[in-house]
């Protein structure tokens, strides 16, 4: 089972994503914005997967992905974006920043878990 960092400024969204991941036995850490997530990710061992929202205060999700990819320990860690944004342009930005995949909300718990399993390999 994996250690997963879930990043979202919405408390109910952190709870929903957290409960979904925990139901599959994963260990879940949460952060409320990109800045907090980057601080958590920079210390200690890297997590196995990061799932981040896009629109958040302080640091948005796409900047977070970009910053994480600059850390040597996050070069190979899957980074998933989970957002209400569905435009091709935003997805392209995410891809260029180094995201592994893009999931559009509202999310289906089973499909989220399938995707998590797929990217964790």
């Amino acid at each position, binding site marked *: 089972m994996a250690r997963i960092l879930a990043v979202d400024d*919405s*408390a109910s969204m952190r*709870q*929903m994503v957290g409960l979904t991941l925990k139901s599959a036995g994963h260990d879940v850490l949460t952060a409320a914005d990109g800045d907090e997530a980057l601080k958590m990710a920079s210390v200690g061992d890297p997590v196995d997967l990061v799932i981040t929202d896009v629109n958040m205060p302080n640091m948005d999700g796409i900047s977070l992905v970009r910053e994480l990819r600059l850390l040597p320990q996050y070069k190979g860690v899957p980074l998933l974006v989970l957002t209400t944004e*569905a435009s091709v342009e935003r997805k392209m930005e995410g891809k260029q920043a180094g995201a592994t995949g893009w999931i559009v*909300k509202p999310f*289906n718990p089973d*499909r989220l878990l399938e995707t998590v399993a797929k*990217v964790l390999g």
Partner: protein
Amino acid sequence: MSSNLLNSAATHPKPNAVRGHEGIQRTWDPHADRWCAKILPGEYYVTNHDEAITTVLGSCISACIRDPAIRVGGMNHFMLPEDTTNGKSAWLDAELGLATRYGSFAMESLINDLLKLGAKRERLEVKLFGGGRILASMTDVGKRNIDFARNWLRAERLNLVGEDVGETTPRRVLYFTQTGRVLVKHLRTLESRAIATREEQYLTSFKQKPVENDVELF
């Protein structure tokens, strides 16, 4: 009438819609003395101009949300899908989970678009409308919508500054995004059947097309 409309349109050019909201119908409202966006069940609209937003609510609910500091505001209009779980509360339960996900999505979409216009989460002022039990024969779906919206706002620590919810009449809501003023007209119950039918059609439309996440791996 038409010359008034023409004069108004000439002196008040239609403001540009925020990107992604161009599809919402807007007309000049002589009573509001503003351009007015009319939203239907499942839609939402945000603006950084001096506009009004209107909708008609039966058991659906609308959140009117604005950031008074930078004068941007918006409104959504939604209903939770039916709860067939007899009160089970597990989030992972398919039906209840669907309701929570759908409601959160409706609230979050509106708030995200306000944040994109520069609003700050901690400054947001929220007002809630609707959730009426407009047909005596119906189960009280309005109450579920009200409970969801209040609980969600509490969980998100957002500031609920006013509401006109519940009761048995449908409502027409007119929201002035720059000032936060809201005019609510309780409609005659004669109109309830037509409004309930439209809301049922909206519910059926997303039952047929399940709320699914679109996943793309790069």
